[in-house]
């Protein structure tokens, strides 16, 4: 089995395990989940660094941010 296949299996397994451990969460139990730093997205303060990473690296996307477009000429 190649390394990439092993990684895929591990990630899929971890994700499935996480879902399997789902419990019903009531609104009053979400004080931690609703913390601003628990947000499942990039924050505005990360905007500058995401911009140069898109330009200086070959990969982009799957992070709720820019995945193409724009110049990045310099």
């Amino acid at each position, binding site marked *: 089995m190649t390394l990439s296949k092993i990684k895929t299996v591990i990630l899929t397994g971890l994700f499935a395990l*996480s879902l399997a451990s789902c419990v019903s969460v009531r609104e009053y139990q979400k004080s931690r989940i609703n913390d601003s*730093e628990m947000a499942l997205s990039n924050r505005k*303060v990360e905007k*500058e660094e995401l911009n140069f990473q898109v330009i200086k690296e070959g990969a982009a996307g*799957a992070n709720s941010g820019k*995945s193409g*477009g724009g110049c990045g000429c310099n």
Partner: protein
Amino acid sequence: MKKYLFIISFLFCIVYSSFAQYFKKDTTTYTTKSLKLDEVNLVTGYYSQTGDHATTLGGRGDEKVTEISSAIDLKFVGYTDPNYIHSLTAGFGFAHHSAASAAWVSKTGASSKLGNRIYPSLDWSMQNVKAKTEYSAGAQYSGEFNYKSLTLNGGFSIKNNNNGEFSAKVNASIDRVKLIYAQNMGKNIVGNTSFTGSTVSSNDDVLAFSGTRPSAVSAASGTTTTTSRTVVSGASYSYSTTPRTTLTTAFGYSQVINPRLQVAVLADLTGQFGYLGLPFHRVFFSDADSSRIERLPSQRLKLPIGVRANYFLGDNFIFRTYYRFYMDSWGIKSHTASIEVPVKLSSFFSISPFYRYYTQTAADYFAPFAQHKTTEAFYTSNYSYSAFSSNFFGVGIKWSPLEGGIFKSVELRYGHYAQTTNLVSDVITLHLKF
């Protein structure tokens, strides 16, 4: 383009305010709240970069860049029904940069290293609280001297009864690239110099070689001379443009696992079409004395898949983790992994160290300076398509005072970035939320 964006924004505001008034009449069954300013965000950043693989010089030369940017957005929120929450966000950003390589892409023929970019935006969303759905639409514009980009997007999301949320978004960027060819840049170069070193300075013209071509990749063992160039001071040139289109569909599913853990799976499918190189990116060859501009396929398909997992440990620690696998039709495969650990020192103050690791394989069309053959169909010496890895680490601090003060939050973040290509950069960002 800016005029159209302004007109669209203006019309939208008129139509929206008309609807707001219409719903306001019917106050017997539900409460109406017209759009009111809810939040203001001001983000200011400073970026500084050094490197020695300038693409304008074929993969060698000074890559020094500094940029200062500032963006503000105003978010308005209103209700047309207790179940419908509307928000309208208008933003405007400005960036000013100084780039060593920009001297070779000058507007006037002089060796200007400066450039500006503006990026206004307008985003709207409507949340249906009862149906647990949200619709959104937006438009963004980015303009700089040699590149204009208009992006339109629309999105939809729906929550289920088990704390899960599915989202889908489509995004279209319609760009125009100004065709400032490398040959045009000959006008920018102070000529009649020669060099024998392995690095290129701003006074060296490597656009054309004469005499014996060095056989090695490095020019250190050979001598190259330049053709005569004339600096045309104060002159202006007109350039034609060519299109580049980027279409993206982005899907996401997030799930609250338990009161301390939530995860999200994100997948994009991006297609780019049109002129995907830049006309002032030079490529040098091992079997020719003159350079050409980079040549890349007119299509590129990107497939990134990412997973986020955030965990709240105890009362003070949050673990924000992210992993992404990426592949595209140009042969690049990459892995990205990051972790950030906000530590809540008090109810109002947190400190967040972070680390990000990135690695990628080279694109099929990349080769360093003077390693391409002229017989190849596609070629580039842009090091963002080379094989490399990078480390990015730093720290952020966040202060969230109680309601009633001027600021809702103040956040400062510093990061240091280093690639194995010798590119090193530092970035510092300040986010003020009012």
